[in-house]
């Protein structure tokens, strides 16, 4: 992860150290608890849960709840399971992440290497967009999507996520390019490279790490979004989070907790995988999100 270990000058006694380890392990259990609950209860029959065995390992192991959550659970009125919504999310996330990252990279490049009067103000305007409470744009956005003919569509959601994500991607690339030596840009200018050639040949080949940060951040945020999905998605474009909420909140019939847990894991799996595979970049994005680059 991003924070490097260094030699600490502080020395602690044996008793203190034991206590520290104890506290740390206790909290590790606390953070693991919901995940444990979700996993063990997603592979046991419903009776084991309702019978007071939520914390127990399954007596009878079954993948039935997973299958049901994926392909046959009642979501809204249709017994489709979560799978169509999973693909809705993918169809929304991939273009939104790609577009916002490309825009962020170009913006960061302009804002650091082609500075102009008021560029800080422009950046401030773009950046503040990430921090507004989105309630303030819900009403006009719904109207605008209607005007553009994008109401209830995946592309409408892509547009929304690009607009409100571009501030973060710009922030990442700007902070990254700010420490990229300007002399390299000048050398390339003297060598005769133009605006896009410099970007393509000089800057982009060195942008791997920050592109990963930006992609992971956008992927996590957009995948996990609920507010925009709930407000603007139509029947054919609802993302995974909205579908999961519909599944869990459904008031009719028996509450199939095991199916809910399996569905929750399905919804969490993509971002969780990204976190496990590339946690270092995820943390970097989080840190940069607190503006300090």
């Amino acid at each position, binding site marked *: 992860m991003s924070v490097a270990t260094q030699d600490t000058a502080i020395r602690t006694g044996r008793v203190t150290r034991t206590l520290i380890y104890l506290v740390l392990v206790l909290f590790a259990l606390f953070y693991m608890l919901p995940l444990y609950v979700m996993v063990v209860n997603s592979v046991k029959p419903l009776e084991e849960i309702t019978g007071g065995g939520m914390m127990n390992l399954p007596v009878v192991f079954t993948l039935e709840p997973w299958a049901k959550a994926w392909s046959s659970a009642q979501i809204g009125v249709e017994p489709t399971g979560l799978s169509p919504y999973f693909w809705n999310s993918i169809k929304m996330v991939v273009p939104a992440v790609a577009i916002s990252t490309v825009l962020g990279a170009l913006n960061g490049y302009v804002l650091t290497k082609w500075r102009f009067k008021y560029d800080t103000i422009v950046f401030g305007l773009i950046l503040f967009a990430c921090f507004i409470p989105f309630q303030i744009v819900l009403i006009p956005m719904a109207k605008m999507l209607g005007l553009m003919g994008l109401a209830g569509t995946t592309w409408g959601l892509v547009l929304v996520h690009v607009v409100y994500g571009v501030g973060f991607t710009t922030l990442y690339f700007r902070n990254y390019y700010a420490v990229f*030596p300007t*002399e*390299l840009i*000048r*050398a*390339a*200018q*003297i*060598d*005769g*490279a133009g605006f896009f*050639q410099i970007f393509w*040949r*000089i800057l982009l*080949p*060195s942008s791997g790490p920050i592109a990963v940060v930006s992609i992971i951040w956008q992927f996590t945020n957009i995948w996990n979004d609920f507010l925009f999905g709930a407000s603007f998605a139509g029947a054919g474009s609802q993302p995974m989070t909205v579908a999961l909420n519909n599944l869990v909140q459904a008031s009719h019939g028996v509450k199939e907790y095991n199916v809910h847990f399996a569905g929750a894991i399905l919804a969490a799996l993509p971002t969780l995988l990204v976190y496990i595979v590339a946690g270092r970049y995820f943390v970097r994005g989080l840190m940069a999100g607190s503006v300090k680059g």
Partner: protein
Amino acid sequence: MGFLDIDNTTKSYGAVEVLHKVDISVQEGEFLVLVGPSGCGKSTLLNMIAGLEEITSGEIRIKDAVMNGVHPSKRNIAMVFQSYALYPNMTVGQNITFGLEMHGTPKPERDKAMKDVASLLQIEQLLDRKPGALSGGQRQRVAMGRALVRNPDVFLFDEPLSNLDAKLRVDMRTEIKKLHQKLGTTIVYVTHDQIEAMTLSTRIAVMNGGYVQQLGTPQEIYDAPANIFVATFMGSPAMNVLPAKVEIENGRPTAQVILHDGSTVSLPFSQDNMKDWAGKEILLGIRPETITDEDAADRKSSNIAHMTNRIVVTEPAGSDTFVTMTLGGKDVIARMRSDANVQAGADFTFAVNMEKAVAFDPKTEARIAP
């Protein structure tokens, strides 16, 4: 008309003028060094020649063509940067030929030019490496190769040696000078290091506060500095500048200087026009190497004065020994041979070569010309 003309050029950021009416004409094949402390405007001026910064007013011409507003790549210049600015994702070979590629030179020609430059700089074996795998000196060579391959009208160097360690810096300095002698190209070179300026240049522009303080050959700058700034900036240790009073003795102008014990010594001027300053205070400039022991005094000098003064500190530096004394109320440094018999706290008789001494007007700080 020169080869490169900087004509009445100024630079402002908003309302702040950072370069004031710079006027320099560089001849073909000249090696001009812009030297000064940081913030003096030397790098700004270089960037303006390169086209990386706009010209607020005035003109810059290369081969009589006005360069204002012309894109850097169309000025037929090449630049070596302080950080070398090698493209990290390209090999040495690609770095060198990137400019040719951008200008649409066909690949066979590019490869030939690259080979020629590589052999000139002896970097053939590095062509396939990435810059990250090179030492400082090698990077420096590659950066020069990238500039040379373009065969430009003017080479611009922006403090190219300041990132090297002391020994390598001296080697590369010699290398650059050799290259200039061999190729006879026109060079504008920025540095804050006065030794680099003295050793490399055919002419020096000493800059401070956005003004060119003096433009001249290294010898002119050293022997006849235009003002106290130039006098103390060029030369190491710096020229001693101390208050003195001009008085006429036996028909000759002399500088009356106060010794450590409050008594006065009389040092005769070589410049006859110092008579005009009789009875007035001036600032006397004496370079450390012109204060020595009797045996080391310049035999060719017609004006050696003597004074006995107390030694405060001695600093043996191997080849020389630096001696500090109090003169005119200031710490004054003398440069002695290493075998001179000097001891802190002892009195010693110094020989001062007054032929080389200069005088400054204390009000304007300009040198009083002979």
